[in-house]
């Protein structure tokens, strides 16, 4: 099954109002080609879920500058000035989440779990309004699962069936988000035939991936 399409075809599955899970960490391992293709679409009211909404050099900020993004769920927005601006203008539009909790909420959403029980954030603003649970005398926050309509994922190598390898520290959220989105779009530096990728190096199985496109030079 060949899942290879153009970046424009891949992002044609994104609709206004969608929650987008976007892989990457700061300026590295973000799906730049998919994001740039999305800039050409007439969609709005998107929610961006990502570690940091990228930096001034990555494309998520362009989506924001075009007014396509209404909400952010992220751990750190210090490198994206537009995210900071959104937080000032409309604090309710930005949810800041401890990094491990964001990872665990996304994992829970993809793994059929009812949520994650964490101590992280107790006694801080990150706990405000959240239910807690007492277990063996310890208090835990009940953190809700987080899923997306579409995941935008970077891969170093991807085969035509969607099996992905993420090199080095580009694994970050790129490896966990494909479990937690209805539609998964992958951009790969290198697209190979099925069987060329060593089974021991596959981080995301093709069964989770819907469309694959070639990453352009960035």
């Amino acid at each position, binding site marked *: 099954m060949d899942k290879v399409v153009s970046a424009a075809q891949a992002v044609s599955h994104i609709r206004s109002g969608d929650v987008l899970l976007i892989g990457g960490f700061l300026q590295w391992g973000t799906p730049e080609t998919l994001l740039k293709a999305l800039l050409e679409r007439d969609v709005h009211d998107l929610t961006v879920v990502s570690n940091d909404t990228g930096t001034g050099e990555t494309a998520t900020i362009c989506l924001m500058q075009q007014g396509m993004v209404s909400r952010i769920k992220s751990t750190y927005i*210090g490198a994206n000035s537009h995210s900071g601006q959104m937080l000032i203008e409309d604090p309710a539009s930005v949810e800041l989440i401890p990094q491990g909790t964001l990872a665990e909420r996304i994992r829970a959403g993809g793994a059929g779990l009812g949520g994650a029980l964490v101590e992280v954030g107790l006694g801080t603003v990150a706990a405000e309004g959240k239910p807690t649970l007492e277990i063996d005398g310890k208090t835990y926050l009940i953190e809700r699962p987080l899923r997306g309509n579409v995941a935008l994922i970077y891969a170093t190598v991807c085969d035509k069936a969607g099996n992905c390898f993420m090199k080095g520290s*580009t694994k970050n959220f790129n490896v966990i988000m494909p479990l937690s989105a209805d539609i998964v779009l992958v951009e790969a530096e290198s697209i190979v035939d099925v069987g060329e990728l060593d089974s021991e190096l596959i*981080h995301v199985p093709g069964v989770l991936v819907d469309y694959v496109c070639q990453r352009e030079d960035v």
Partner: protein
Amino acid sequence: MNAKEIIARRAALEPSDNNLINLGIGLPTMIANFVPADVEIVLQSENGILGVGPKPAPGEGDWHIYDAGGGLVTVKPGAMFFDSAYSFSLIRGGHVDITFLGALQVDEQGNLASWMVPGRRVTGMGGAMDLVVGAKRVVITMEHTQKGTPKLLAACTYPLTAVGVVDRIITELAVIDVTPKGFVVRELAEGVTFKDVCDVTDAPLIPDDQILKMRLAGVDNREDDRC
């Protein structure tokens, strides 16, 4: 030696052999440079590396291998890469022996404020809340005051990063532990008196039974180490 180097050289004596260490952005990253040669440490970068090595030479490096500050790094032999869920399993699960990070305020209950100054631009907590709750030992490395304003307080006034998590604070003046009784001064830097530290601290300080002279990695510490 400037304040930051004093702090980094003292902090470098904290790890034991084979410890897993996480270094926050900024001053803490200097610590790795001063760890004694006979102590092997494994550095974690929370974006997905165990076994971080030095920065690559300018113009070299592989952009697939970078640290949590976004800078390219090299990795040591035996390094491992992983995703964010595994990274924070290690962090929350108590597998990090020491996390070193800076702070805006620390109070005598061990409460930590490090991520948000009210009225200033908010950037988010990143992995800091997870690190200070999950690590076996939390060591704050920071200058003793913010341009003269005390950062060690009876009670933090800024929004907290976590409650009751700080074990030790290392400043250019002193090494101070958070104990059930409050702040205890363990070591004083060369030429610094207990009163000097009290003057720039906004909380009661308890002198240890035997305050030592602050030791520094890579500096001859053999002379009498009582203050």
